[in-house]
Each structure stands twice: as C-alpha cells, then as structure tokens.
C-alpha cells in the first residue's frame, strides 16, 4: 500500500533525487528563462499553462487510478489545507509579482542555477518578501490563518465524486490546451503550415 513513507534519511535522499528531476524538467521545459515565463502573460507563449496542466492531470490521474485499484491510500497523502481568503489574496499578490519579476520561486532557483543573475535578484527579493511577511505577521496573522484550514477538495465544493471531478479537470485541461494552441497560432500571425497537432516525444525532423 502506498505511500511507502520510508524512514527519514531515505526520504531525504529521495527528496534530492526528485528535486533533481524536477529542476531538470523545468529547465528542459524552458522555465529557466524569465522572458519565456513572462510571455505566458502576454499570450505569446502558452508553455507555462501547457506544462502545468499536463503535469497536474498526469499526477491526478495516476492517483485516481491507483486509488481505485486499492494501491494508494489518499488519507495518508498530504493535501494542502484550504484557507480560501488568504489563498486567493496571496495568489493575486503572487501573480502580480510573477508578471513583474518574471519568475516564481521554483523557476527562479532553476534560472539562478543556469547563471541568470536576474534570478538571483529575484531570489533575494523573495527572501526579503518572506522576511517582510514574518515582520508583518503579528498584524496579519488573523487573516492569514482564517478560513478553517481544513482538508477540502473540489469534490466537496462541487458535490461530485473523485472520479467525476478528475474527468472534468481532464476535460478542462484539454479545452485549455486547444485554446492555448489556437492563441499561439493567432499570435504568431502567420497562417503557418503546422501539419501536425500531435505531440511526439522527440522533436521530429519535420519541425
């Protein structure tokens, strides 16, 4: 039955390995570049949306399938507690900073590791912002901890089953992918040939 939850030193070794894979994939996705990340917000490059939702759907479907055959116990998997107010407010602030700074925390680490000096400035800023939050914590703690902090799911909000929500999220992602491809074609302006909508693993010679 998963998760295995190995003893601490094995878990931390696995943390370094999975972090390595995470950082490697982010770089290969092009997320070590602030220009590429920021282009998402000017509809010129929808890679952020595509990568993010493909990853979410992949992991989500993996969990749904393994759960349905009894191989994983969802109760033993950490689920971010829901604090709606602070999460929406924090998300809006975060998004504004993302568009100004061109990174989010994880991508700034990858960018800094590949030599981007602006990513080091971003990381310095992020630490200053974290410090600022700690400094202001006495005044904002009430709001920051408001909203219950319960283990809540989209299923609870929509009053639908786990499987149904997973299907809806998958359809939502597919719809957004179609929209993203359409926008990218539109923004490139040229009626390009683009013969295949298939997404093969390796870059094919045709490209």
């Amino acid at each position, binding site marked *: 039955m998963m*998760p295995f939850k190995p003893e601490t030193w094995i*878990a931390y070794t*696995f*943390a*370094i390995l*999975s*972090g390595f*894979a*995470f950082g490697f*994939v982010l770089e290969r996705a*092009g997320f*070590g*570049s602030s*220009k590429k990340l*920021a282009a998402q917000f000017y509809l010129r490059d929808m890679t952020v949306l*595509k*990568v993010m939702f493909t*990853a979410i759907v*992949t*992991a989500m479907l993996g969990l749904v399938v393994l759960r349905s055959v009894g191989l994983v116990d969802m109760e033993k998997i*950490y689920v*971010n507690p*829901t604090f709606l107010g*602070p*999460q*929406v*407010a*924090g*998300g809006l*602030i975060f*998004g504004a*900073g993302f*568009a*100004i*700074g*061109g*990174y989010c*925390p*994880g991508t700034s*680490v990858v960018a800094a*590791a*590949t*030599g981007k000096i602006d990513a080091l*400035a*971003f990381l310095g*800023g992020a*630490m200053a*912002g*974290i410090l600022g939050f*700690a400094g202001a*914590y006495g005044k904002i703690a009430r709001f920051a901890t408001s909203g219950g902090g319960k*283990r809540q799911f*989209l299923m*609870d909000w929509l009053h639908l089953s786990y499987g149904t*929500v997973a299907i809806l999220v998958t359809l939502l992602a597919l719809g957004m992918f179609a929209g993203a491809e359409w926008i*990218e074609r539109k923004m490139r302006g040229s009626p390009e040939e683009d013969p295949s909508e298939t*997404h*093969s*693993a390796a870059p094919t010679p045709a*490209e």
Partner: protein
Amino acid sequence: MTTHTQTQGSHEKPMWDPYVAGFFLGLVLLGTFLVVGRGLGASGALARFTARITDVFAPTWVSSNGAFGGYFAKGARWWDDWLVFEVIGVVLGGLAAGLTSGRFGLQVERGPRVTPRQRLFFAFLGGAIVGFGARLAQGCTSGQALTGGATLALGSWAFMFAVFGGAYGIAYFVRRLWT
C-alpha cells in the same frame, strides 16, 4: 506544438515539447506522492533558508516570530524538512540541465526595452511581492498550484486561478518590462 521561436543559439539543445515536459513533471510529482506522501515545493524551503539567515542577526526575534518560530522550536531543526532537501536537488538538476543543454551562461535576461540595472531592480521587486504572497497563501506555484492541484485541494485551485488573475491583471501595466 514544438516550433519554439525564443532565443536559441545554434549550440543549444531544443527544449522539450511542453506536453512531454509536463508529462514527466507529472510523473516526478506522482512519484513523490507514492513514496513519501508529499508533493513538490519551493517557497517553503526558501522560508526556512530566510529564517536561518535572519537567525544569525536576530535570533531572539526569529524564535519569537509567529511565522518563523516553529522552525527553531525545541527539538526542531530548521533544515529538517523534505522541501529543503528537494530544493537542493532542484539546484543540482537545473545546473545539470543547463550545462547539458547549452543554456548555461551568466547573463541578466531582460525585455528589449529595459536596462540590466532596471531588470535587476524589477526582478528584486517582483521577487519580494512573490515571496510575501507565497507565505500568505502557504505555498507557491509548485507547492500549492501543482502539488495541491493534483490532489484536487480546493484552496490550491483557488490559489492557482488567483495567480493567473493577478498576473494577467497587472501584465498590461508592466508591459514595458517584457515587450
């Protein structure tokens, strides 16, 4: 859609197709769920590093602080967290990928209309806003949107749409930075 038009020198390896990269990212995330029962993250580790650095200068303030104090409570060790080790891996993985793709190089990446000095200022400013927002939301694009999103956590989905809302909402006003 693999026709990327961004800056790619002749020596650079092409980036992965976004859907392929996303699929592998999803497998990594699924792997951490199945092995340790947790997902990926970044800002939580940054908060611990920040607390550790601040502790050098103001130890009493840090240990009595509501946001940081827990990292230094009796019996707790600031580095004793899954995310701290995971982020060390992110640095190594990013470095390895950069070195093997030809995309490693010291530079201040910036939009066409800003100077390097302006870019560094706005990178720091954006970082500060992101850092504050991430702590308020108790996570970032990795720890909330990606990880919480995959477990279908309600608050994580609210966070994710708020991030896109905040970014698209301000993008027009800061377009000089990027276009």
